[in-house]
């Protein structure tokens, strides 16, 4: 059973062919590093999977069932979570509040539902423990490091029992030490059987964490192979076009 399967997915914006005929298979727990030059179509592919864009052609399968997403919420319900670097976190709230944002736990006081802070804090604490992250549920996100912020975003994915986590350039704007933290988090997700699609320009990060490397060039998937059977040199060649196909 595959976690996610794309069959001949294309997406064009008017005359621009952002994606042409992309077919890709991702197993549960697999970490796939998606690489490519600027404008190669990586973000577009992520957005198609996340339900932001409907594909112009092609089919998407999740756990072998065909799906059609009309909005991001559809994808979320199907078990797809997107981790945005900064977009999806509220600095003014605590880590636990962010993990539960939009799906807060409540308890009834008479007819009135009130927030169940205690339960949310404990649940969030458990999730951070599972991610082996130092993040404390009550701390304000404002005072957190980039790595801890990622942990908050990723804990959201765990909370919703996501099958697939999409990460578009999670390590673009953070320090080296924090990159290591994020890569650890990705490994942890994979250990829990969650498939991860990691978009990154940083070759060492991708090789450190990915099982499979997929390369997009001008909207076409020109490679999808085991990281162990590839090398940074080969991937660079694929990205630039020096190597046609692999």
């Amino acid at each position, binding site marked *: 059973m595959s976690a996610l399967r794309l069959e001949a997915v294309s997406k064009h914006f008017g005359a621009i062919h952002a994606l042409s005929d992309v077919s890709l298979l991702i197993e549960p727990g697999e970490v796939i590093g998606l690489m490519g030059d600027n404008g190669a179509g990586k973000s577009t592919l992520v957005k198609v999977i996340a339900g932001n864009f409907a594909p112009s052609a092609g089919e998407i399968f999740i756990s072998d069932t065909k799906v059609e997403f009309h909005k991001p919420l559809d994808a979320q319900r199907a078990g797809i979570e*997107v981790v945005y670097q900064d977009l999806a976190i509220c600095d*003014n*709230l605590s880590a636990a*509040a962010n993990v539960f944002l*939009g799906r807060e736990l409540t308890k009834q006081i008479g007819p009135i*539902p009130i927030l169940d802070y205690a339960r949310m804090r*404990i649940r969030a604490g*458990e999730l*951070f423990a599972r991610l082996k992250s130092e993040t404390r549920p009550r701390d304000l996100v404002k005072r957190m490091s980039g790595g801890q912020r990622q942990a908050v975003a990723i804990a959201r994915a765990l909370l919703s029992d996501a099958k697939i986590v999409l990460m578009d350039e999670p390590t673009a704007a953070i320090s080296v030490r924090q990159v290591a933290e994020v890569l650890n988090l990705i490994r942890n997700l994979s250990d829990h059987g969650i498939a991860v699609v990691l978009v990154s320009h940083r070759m060492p990060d991708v090789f450190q964490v990915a099982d499979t490397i997929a390369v997009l060039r001008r909207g076409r998937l020109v490679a999808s192979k085991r990281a162990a059977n590839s090398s940074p040199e080969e991937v660079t060649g694929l990205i630039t076009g020096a190597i046609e196909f692999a």
Partner: protein
Amino acid sequence: MSNQGNRTLTPTANSLADAIGHSEHRGMLARLTNHQTFWVFMAAVLACLALSLLTDTFATERNLFNVSRNFAFVAIIALGMTAVIASGGIDLSVGSAVVLSSMTVAVLMSAGMPFWIGIPAALAVAILLGAVNGVLVAYAGMPPFVVTLGMLSVGRSLAMVLSNNKMIYQFGPDHELLLALGGGSTMGLPNPLLVMVVLAAITGFLFKWTRWGQHLFAMGGNESAAKLTGIPVRQLKVSVYVFSALTAGITGVLEVGWLGGVTTNLGQGMELAVIAAAVIGGANLAGGVGTAFGAVVGALLIEVIRNSLILLGISTFWQGAFVGSFIVIAVAFDRFRSVRQQG
């Protein structure tokens, strides 16, 4: 990195919660003094003490009664304003919501309608005004500043049309009831003050304990994040402006009873005092921060200062200068603090 190893050895929920508990206890005093609200409260208390010593008019029953009533009016609306500001918006139309709601109740009751029709109608008009603000901000995507500035003008103009710009001081069969509501007192405390306390408690509860409150602060902190997590930000925005207008509407109804009559300049310029109260009380104009208690304390400080100007014989022309400077100082204070935190 070494303590990460320690942590993973004891990943049970209990030990984790313990660890969290310990790290959180920085001591009551340290936490208290870290809050702007605390210092504003201290300032208000000190001002009261100073006034009691410096003048023999401040601590009189009559003056205190007046101060607490005026303070209640500003504080009630500051609660609504805090919600708007914390959600990332601003509402300049509250003064007009006040006059429109009081004019509605006045016109209806002077035409012979009973109390129980006049007041709900006045509140409904205020809610409608807030809903128009909210829809224009949320669905038409217009800046709150522009929408509510327009409403500031429209609302007052409608009140003039409604009353033909005349003063109304006869309220039909339920005249006494209306006057008693806003002007009377219960157990020695002026009614508006009691209403304010109840509304502050409700607002505090809504902010802290409901999903509405949580979502409101999330939206003020990062609107696109709130949207991405599926929070219905548009409906939420409408509800926030309705809430603000409703607090203004309640104030309008109470003010009629207190004043015993309504003119179309009621509530003029009130938005400034209210915004000042909210901001002094810790609401952040950039959104995401604010408390109900802060709004009340901010309103208290403003009213005490205003009263002191009068009692100390300083010309009332200076009031605007004080209120205006207060807003600027409070915002500057906030800027200074956040710059220091980042640096």
